[in-house]
């Protein structure tokens, strides 16, 4: 049977067909749809959960695989940094059943803070790595990954990128292959599963031997494929870049590497001897290129292509042209008459978002703000410009701690979401408590992991499986229990309440203070309130309502008679009735309405 699947849907299907029993991950674009599709389509066969962070997911998957269950971990590229500590020991130990880790990388930074190339982890952790080029391979490589993992007693990494995860193509489906193992008592094999130094020195030697075997095996794997074409140009590539390169060089010879670690050295040697010029095309870092060079083979690669951003067909054509390697297709450039500039459509807080009021205040109070990862990072953009740092999950509280240690002359705050706090915010807050450093942590509790598509986290009583209830961890209780003496919880939609709470927190001098701004994401609380409207007789065209940065606040066509400025209006099709803009209006011109108005008023 054939179906069109996205790469992530195909990975979920692959998990099903591979007989995976336990799938764990933390949400992160572009990986989040894997766990979601496992639940939606194969929830009867596979236990799935959103774990508190990637490291916990990795440890739990290792524990499940030690216990004889086939396990899968999903993460975005930066989540690999979080789980890497555990990845490295799991490669030493191996497991009783197959263990596959999927990393979804983001060349082009469509939704990430960096562009790291996780193929370095293959070499660092010494983990066999498969790189699918499309949805069919995404599915097949999960099945193959489990097979290799069990054959060689080692976890396997499957590295996809946004263009594989979020692209769709036709997939031929297969059947589920159950592991066939029954539940057994936990294996008591400390020499295999306890990495104490005296055990680990033997494990390391064994691992290196294993890698040699796998390297030889890689030369026999059909997914490492030579396609002989014209021998003037030979291209070595992996993953989706193969598909880009095939468009630009349809006549060239190709060595497509399905397994990018360990490399099939014999095949690479054979290929290099069969072509006149050898070109390695890979996005981001010269991971393949450097290993091939180390074999003593002359190749071109990063002298032609930059080590950043995607290499789409048009990019490959352009860079090759510049390097004197002519494309084998009709040029795609043509003269285009284009507008010089267009209004941008940058991301904004949704109408009805609970974060809006806090950032309105932070902008007004001009406080230095250490930020974190989540929707609230949109507070960095105009009109707020009120989040001044952002780097990794949970970093905001540690950076705040550092600002306090540096004894900056201002009151200082950080913002962190509920899911991010559970993920990596608790240890740095404990650190602030213990050292009694002064600073205010604004814990923005919208009851969901919002930016990645509204997943659950430990603070809510529901889970990714609709009928599986969960226990909500009490965040305020937790903050108090770790020793924060000054905690205020306020209604995020009430600007006065937030302002009052914030001022009290800032005034507290004896250690950290925590302000919990509570208000559900509009995707959690879907009760639609009637939209607000602007009374044109009262509006003085001062523009204050635009400072809350809501797409629902628009310019009206009526000018103020004295200033000639356009008055404000509200698009009733966008307004969710949160009332934040009404609270900032100095003349009370913004009022609630009874029901929604006609859509046609907007045209």
């Amino acid at each position, binding site marked *: 049977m054939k179906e069109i699947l996205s790469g992530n849907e195909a990975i979920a299907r692959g998990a099903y067909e591979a007989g995976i029993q336990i799938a764990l991950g933390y949400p992160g674009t572009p990986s989040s749809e894997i766990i979601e599709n496992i639940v939606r389509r194969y929830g009867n066969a596979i236990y799935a959960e959103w774990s508190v962070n990637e490291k916990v997911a990795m440890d739990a998957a290792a524990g499940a695989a030690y216990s004889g269950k086939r396990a899968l971990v999903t993460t975005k590229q930066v989540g690999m940094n979080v789980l890497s500590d555990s990845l490295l020991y799991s490669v030493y130990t191996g497991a009783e059943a197959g263990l596959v880790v999927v990393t979804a990388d983001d060349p082009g930074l469509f939704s990430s803070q960096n562009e790291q190339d996780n193929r370095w982890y293959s070499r660092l952790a010494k983990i066999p790595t498969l790189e699918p080029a499309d949805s069919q391979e995404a599915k097949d490589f999960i099945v193959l990954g489990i097979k290799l993992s069990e054959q060689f007693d080692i976890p396997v990494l499957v590295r996809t990128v946004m263009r594989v995860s979020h692209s*769709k193509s036709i997939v031929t489906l297969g059947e589920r292959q159950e592991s066939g193992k029954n539940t057994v008592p936990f294996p008591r094999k400390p020499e295999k599963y306890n990495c104490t130094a005296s055990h680990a020195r033997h494990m390391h030697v064994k691992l290196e031997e294993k890698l040699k075997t796998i390297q030889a095996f890689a030369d026999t794997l059909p997914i490492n494929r030579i396609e002989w074409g014209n021998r003037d140009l030979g291209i070595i590539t992996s993953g989706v870049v193969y598909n880009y390169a095939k*468009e630009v060089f349809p006549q060239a010879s190709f060595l497509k590497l399905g397994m990018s670690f360990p490399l099939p050295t014999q095949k690479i040697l054979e290929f290099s001897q069969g072509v006149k010029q050898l070109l390695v095309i890979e996005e981001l870092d010269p991971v393949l290129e450097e290993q091939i060079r180390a074999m003593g083979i002359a190749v071109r690669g990063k002298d032609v292509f930059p080590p950043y951003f995607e290499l*789409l067909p048009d990019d490959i054509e352009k860079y090759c042209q510049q390097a004197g390697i002519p494309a084998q297709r009709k040029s*795609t450039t043509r003269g*285009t008459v284009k*507008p010089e500039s267009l209004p941008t*459509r940058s*991301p904004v807080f*949704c109408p009805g978002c609970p974060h809006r009021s806090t950032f309105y205040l932070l902008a007004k109070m001009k406080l230095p703000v250490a930020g974190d990862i989540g929707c609230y990072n949109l507070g960095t953009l105009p009109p707020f410009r009120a989040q001044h740092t952002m780097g990794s999950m949970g970093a905001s509280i540690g950076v705040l701690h550092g600002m306090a240690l540096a004894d900056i002359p201002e009151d200082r705050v950080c913002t962190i979401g509920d899911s991010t706090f559970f993920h990596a915010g608790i240890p740095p807050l404990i650190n602030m408590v213990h050292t009694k450093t002064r600073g205010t942590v604004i814990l923005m509790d919208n009851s969901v992991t919002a930016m990645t598509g509204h997943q659950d986290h430990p603070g809510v009583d529901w889970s990714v499986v609709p009928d599986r209830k969960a226990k909500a961890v009490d965040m305020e209780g937790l903050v108090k229990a770790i020793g924060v003496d000054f905690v205020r919880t306020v209604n995020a939609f009430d600007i006065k309440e937030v302002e009052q709470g914030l001022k009290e927190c800032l005034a507290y001098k004896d250690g950290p203070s925590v302000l919990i701004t509570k208000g559900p994401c509009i995707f959690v609380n879907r009760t639609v309130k009637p939209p607000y409207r602007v009374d044109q007789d009262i509006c003085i065209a001062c523009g204050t309502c635009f400072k809350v940065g809501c797409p629902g606040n628009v310019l009206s066509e009526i000018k103020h008679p004295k200033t000639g400025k356009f008055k404000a209006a509200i698009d009733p099709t966008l307004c969710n009735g949160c009332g934040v803009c009404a609270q900032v209006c100095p003349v009370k011109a913004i009022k609630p309405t009874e029901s929604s108005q006609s859509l*046609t008023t907007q045209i």
Partner: protein
Amino acid sequence: MEEMNFLILGVGGQGTILAGDVLSEAGMIAGYDVKKSDILGLAIRSGSVTSFVRWGKRVFSPVASKNSIDYLLAFEPLESLRMLEFLKPSATVILNEYKIPPVTVSTGQMKYPSQEEILHYLEQNSSRIIRTNATLKSQELGSVKVLNIYMVGILASLLPLDSTVWTHAIQKFAPPKFLELNLKAFEKGYQEAKTRHASV
């Protein structure tokens, strides 16, 4: 048809992704190899959304090249101008004329291009523009949510695929509750466009 490339541009929340899914499914049912690539901006709502759909004997890249798009489905006038270099000079543009001004415009920082400008740039880069107010048309049908399938209906009227192919594709993706309405929107878009070709 040897190969056919589609570009769908719109604003988050307009259902462009599903329109691309229907288009991909129809291509597969009709026997093509199909690839599709979606780019969603950071914003869950209200950001620019781009999808490529490619039909062919064998499609390699999920992303189409410049100067290769045969049909542009533009769900919003401003968005229609963002990727003009991807259109073939022979391209057809299906333009939903219902405007959604971005925050930069509604707050007065930037100017939304005029209708004349929009049409000028589209004319310079394509050979046919089919203008419609799909948002209002679908609202008249009962829900703004079916504007995506209304747009697909217009496109279908220009392609040599059997109408049952489209019905099957819509059935696969429309929520059962709204299937009827989606099929109605498809039919409406298809018929209106056909009438218009006849009158030209």
